[in-house]
């Protein structure tokens, strides 16, 4: 009998390409995507299966050195390595976006070395300027055209609205899942949550929407969930696609109750507004509402037309204050991959901001390998002792 609920999520987490390969065998087209900027609703609307491309921190990088140097994002090197080893050969195409500079290059290098049947690059602007929002809508129109050519189908507004509703339903269910982390002790661990999120990123949206209510019911009804611990952590950072880091924190006396990473709340929380032209709502959600440090936001100047540092920090990180209050967080772990400029530049400012609202934090940097995470154990332990 097929697994359901948490076991099903864990099963998919452990063998995440299995369902996508089954669907491929059934004749569905599976499209890989990188990061949180490709607009998934447009894939779903054309009956394409979005499948998030992730790395594998337990797999040594042996092939990617030929096309990505060692001084760039180790996650993207891992992604490229898996691609070169054929792990993503089941994909019918890829859509990648300008999430960061190295992901932009990876999009082009993927095309050069793997030559997928379909590939599209969405050149996502860096700001929320009016001109940038108009440009982004044009870029989505370009994306729509290549998808229509690839599938031979018209991407109507009606289809797109239906897809938006399905993805919004998933976002609402993920919100509900995260609500289960608010009690003390939380009803679900950070490790289990990550397994579920990885599973969602590996399934068609409809199947994810079937899985989530099962998981939520099971978690609400079960006994023997996480126990009360002194530390309630928020983990902020680039990408965490492997449970090892959360397992380590949770084994050391912490509950990871909230996250702000690109494979967590950051990817799911803002819904899409259903606008007359659905591209308007999509453009606004993906460019303006997604809270990632890769998008620059202007700060309102003071009366002397100067910038106030703390106001700027509040403008950029205020949503984290809301998270820490709602999820009753008493410590924050800042995590970033080595060579991640987008997150690296944020670290001193974010630490200062967290300090200004009375929250202790620690910065952990690693090179996306199991061995590297093991070395962080002592630092995490010391941090937990301080906040406990």
């Amino acid at each position, binding site marked *: 009998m097929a697994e359901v609920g948490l076991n099903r999520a864990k099963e998919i987490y452990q063998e995440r390409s299995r369902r996508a390969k089954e669907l491929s065998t059934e004749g569905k087209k599976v499209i890989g995507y990188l990061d949180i900027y490709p607009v998934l609703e447009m894939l779903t609307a054309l009956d394409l299966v979005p499948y998030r491309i992730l790395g594998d921190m337990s797999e040594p990088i042996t092939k990617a050195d030929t096309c990505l140097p060692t001084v760039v994002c180790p996650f993207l090197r891992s992604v490229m390595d898996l691609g070169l080893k054929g792990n993503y050969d089941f994909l019918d195409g890829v859509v990648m976006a300008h999430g960061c500079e190295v992901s932009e290059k990876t999009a082009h290098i993927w095309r050069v070395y793997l030559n997928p049947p379909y590939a599209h690059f969405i050149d996502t602007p860096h700001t929320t300027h009016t001109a940038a929002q108009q440009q982004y809508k044009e870029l989505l129109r370009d994306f729509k055209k290549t998808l229509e050519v690839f599938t031979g189908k018209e991407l109507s507004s009606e289809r797109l609205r239906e897809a938006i509703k399905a993805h919004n339903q998933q976002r609402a269910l993920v919100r509900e899942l995260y609500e289960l982390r608010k009690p003390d002790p939380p009803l679900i661990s950070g490790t289990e949550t990550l397994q579920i999120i990885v599973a969602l990123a590996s399934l068609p949206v409809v199947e994810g929407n079937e899985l989530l209510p099962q998981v939520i019911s099971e978690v609400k009804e079960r006994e023997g969930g996480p126990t009360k611990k002194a530390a309630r952590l928020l983990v902020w950072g680039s990408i965490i696609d492997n449970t090892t880091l959360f397992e380590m924190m949770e084994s050391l006396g912490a509950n990871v109750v909230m996250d702000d990473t690109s494979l967590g709340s950051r990817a799911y929380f803002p819904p899409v507004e259903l606008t007359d032209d659905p591209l308007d709502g999509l453009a606004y959600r993906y460019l303006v509402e997604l809270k990632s440090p890769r998008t620059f936001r202007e700060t309102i100047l003071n009366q002397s037309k100067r910038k106030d540092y703390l106001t700027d920090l509040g403008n950029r990180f205020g949503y984290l204050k809301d998270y820490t209050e709602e999820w009753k967080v008493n410590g924050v772990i800042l995590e970033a991959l080595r060579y991640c*400029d987008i997150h690296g530049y944020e670290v001193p400012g974010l630490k200062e901001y967290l300090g200004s609202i009375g929250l202790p934090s620690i910065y952990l940097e690693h090179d996306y390998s199991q061995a590297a995470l093991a070395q962080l154990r002592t630092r995490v332990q010391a941090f937990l002792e301080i906040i406990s």
Partner: protein
Amino acid sequence: MYPLRALVDGMYERAVEASKEGKPVAWCMVNWWGGDAVLRAMDVAAIYPEDYGAVCAAFGAAPAYLAQSDSDGFPTHMCGYARNCLGYAARMQALGGIPPEAPMGGMPKPTLLLSSGYFCDARYKWFQALGRYLDAPLWVLEMPHPGLKESQMEGVRQHNIKFLVEELREFIAFLERLLGRKMDWDRLAEIIDDTIEMNRVWHQVNELRKARPCPMHSRDFWSSMPASLYMAADPKITADLYRNMYDEVKSLVDSHTGAIDEEKYRLAFAELPPWHSLGFFNQLAERGWNFVIESWSYQPPKPIDLSHVSDPLERVANLTYQYFSGYFENALKNSARWGYFAYPYLEFVREYQCDGIMLHPLLTCRTATNHLMVVQDQLMQKLKVPSLIIEGDIVDLNLFDPADALRKAETFEETMSHYRKVRKEAGMAW
């Protein structure tokens, strides 16, 4: 070429003077001319912390600034220029003014910061992080980065140009609000036309370097390029200096005079050089290594006729877009999907008949490094031209080992000689 470098060096002194006179000063990222022209037309003195990073590296001032940035918690793998600038700004904040040890008179406190979104995430994240030390408002100027294939779709060029133009309009509106004065549109149009002309002449100079022996070494290019990349002075003056340079280089071509005594090997260089150790290239010159061309991203765009474009903002937007996409057409003809970031090297190496390329991965710079493996691979596959990889950094001299580099260079001569034979057997022109 020395007057060109002097023009750039002088911008720091001019900015300090402007600041003393109460005129606005901007710290700018390289933005490929649109933002520069707008600032100049609005009488804002512009200085470029990227260039100042190279200055600090060359004068030995960088290590203290890097250490300051590190101690303030910025990760050490970040851009050397950025860490230098963050350290400088921290020291400036602590002292309440320009640090006394700052080379070339230092950078005065800015009225505003202008960053850009081109290529590198540091270009806006670094200036955003400067908010820790400076209360100057920041504007980020957007630039499109279309993929090669996507760039050929119907309407894409038009909406990208429109985006560039609208971005400049929003920036002008921001400046007018900040400075409380209006743009002089006639002046802006003149500056933009001079900028287009400046780039045209500079392109001609570099075309002369295809001659054998090559009359102009990369060191001269690096001394001269900042005058075009950073609008250090009136572009009319810069264009005149490039014209003088053209005459000088042309006379060397006519007299068959090379930049070095005996040109045994012609090389391309990618990416930015180790500014703190440029003497290293003299030692290679003694071995007959002539560096004849550099990365496309520091070169002027291929000339483009913009006489039919009436709107000055649209003219400069086209120039910027040409800089980014000027090699796309040839890349597509050559079925080179490696697009804008790696394809131009193939064209350069073939046209300048290079025996090898020195790749300089910068340990703190993703932009200058992330495409180099593809360049190495594709140059060998398509042109049988080998690469020599010498790791280093633009600012941090601890990351560059010239003795080791020279040892590698000796061995590389045999490799270059071998591939000369291979190319000859394959019927290639050099």
